[in-house]
């Protein structure tokens, strides 16, 4: 069964229709890359899936269960929204780290706040905190930042910041981790370290959806590539097929343009 299924998602901002009915699905442990030119709706799709925007219509299913229904006009309560949100993680293009906290605190903040809501928090305060710290340290080690636990974001390079932001998202153990152009805000020589981390996560079978402009990377890491243009999915398929043998003219055109760069 698909872990995530998106059906006919639409979203307009004023008169501009950004998503015109986007559908795709993915299995647990898969990596899906979404490619397409700027303005094709990739980022909006991610923001809708993460409830940063409310889609106008369409459905999102998680593990086959209706998770979001655009037709349902009832306002989702803040508590319910939070519960849903925690199934997903999102890595932003420009990191959005909390500048006043050091690396380990950036990663620990959200899990600590969640832990405080647990009924057994008061009795097992110390153990819980230790567990969260251990988990945060493990994750930071996975992204290669064991040396930087007590640095502040302003002391890190862009690549390191993005790795902290990946660790911060992973700390909440999301079912699906979304990346919104994770290397676009980075200098070209720093993109490699992020792509390496994502590749490693793919090997560990973290379920990921990656919006990216790095075609070669997408080809290497993904189980499936989705090509979007003008608010619709034009073509999707396994990377070798879609990149080497695109069926649609628009896909071909886009890949050609990317190649010329």
């Amino acid at each position, binding site marked *: 069964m698909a872990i995530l299924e998106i059906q006919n998602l639409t979203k307009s901002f004023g008169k501009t229709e950004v998503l015109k009915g986007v559908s795709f699905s993915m299995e647990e442990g898969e990596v899906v890359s979404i490619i397409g030119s700027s303005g094709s709706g990739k980022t909006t799709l991610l923001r809708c899936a*993460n*409830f*940063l925007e409310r889609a106008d219509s369409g459905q999102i299913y998680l593990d086959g269960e209706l998770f979001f229904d655009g037709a349902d006009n009832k306002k989702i309560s*803040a508590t319910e929204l*939070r519960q849903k*949100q*925690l199934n*997903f*993680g*999102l890595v*932003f293009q*420009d990191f*959005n*780290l*909390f*500048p*006043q906290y050091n690396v380990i605190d950036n990663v620990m*903040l*959200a899990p600590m*706040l*969640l832990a405080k809501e647990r009924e057994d928090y008061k009795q097992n305060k110390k153990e819980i905190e230790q567990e969260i710290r251990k988990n945060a340290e493990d994750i930071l080690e996975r992204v290669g930042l064991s040396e930087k636990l007590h640095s*502040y*974001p*302003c002391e890190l390079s862009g690549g390191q910041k993005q790795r902290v932001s990946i660790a*911060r*998202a992973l700390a*909440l153990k999301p079912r699906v981790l979304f990346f919104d152009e994770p290397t676009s805000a980075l200098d070209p020589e720093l993109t490699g370290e992020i792509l390496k981390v994502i590749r490693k996560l793919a090997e560990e079978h973290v379920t990921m959806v990656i919006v990216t402009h790095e075609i070669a990377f997408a080809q290497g890491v993904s189980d499936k590539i989705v090509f979007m243009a003008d608010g619709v999915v034009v073509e999707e398929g396994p990377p070798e097929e879609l990149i080497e043998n695109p069926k649609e003219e628009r896909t071909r055109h886009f890949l050609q343009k990317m190649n010329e760069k």
Partner: protein
Amino acid sequence: MEFQSIVSSLFEGFYVNCFIFAMTLLMALPLGLIISFGSMAKFKPIKWLTKTFVWIIRGTPLMLQLFVVMYAPGILFEIPINSRMTAVLIAFVINYAAYFSEIFRGGIESIPKGQYEACQVLGMTKMQAFFKVVLFQVIKRIVAPISNEVITLVKDTSLARVISVAEIIMCAERFTKKGLIWPLFSTGIYFLIFNGVLTLLFGYIEKKLDYYKG
């Protein structure tokens, strides 16, 4: 008259200034934060009501506000205000809260939207996002304008004398009437020293908050 008794009389007066200063700060800062939420409210009537309130308070002299708080309740509703100090504190707290609210609003609105969005996708409530992530960054950004207001407040406390609250300048004027001018001039020293200490304190706070950039 003896030098010592004049100085101690001035100290008594300055104690009143310090009291007005401390109480105003204590109450106007949190009230200012609440007013700033009002002026950023999505619900339009609250927003415009708050904005009008801030406009009136910032648009009229504090001296006039002191008179209004002191005498208007008695004249309009026949409930005279029971103590002059209460009137002073009400006028000062409202006036400074209005100014602080604008500083808070500017600070809060300067925090990038991405900070809130990061909190949201990490499952934080709006309260947690504000108090655990945003507020601290706001404080760092507003230390300088707040310190400006606070220093102005120290000097404004002497306005209390217009409704006969015996602050330092009013105390000094009693000696002027007896032909001694230096006590009045010397009050400047009290303000200077107090503000000097505050300047150092704010410099220290700024330095403490300088451990990160952004």
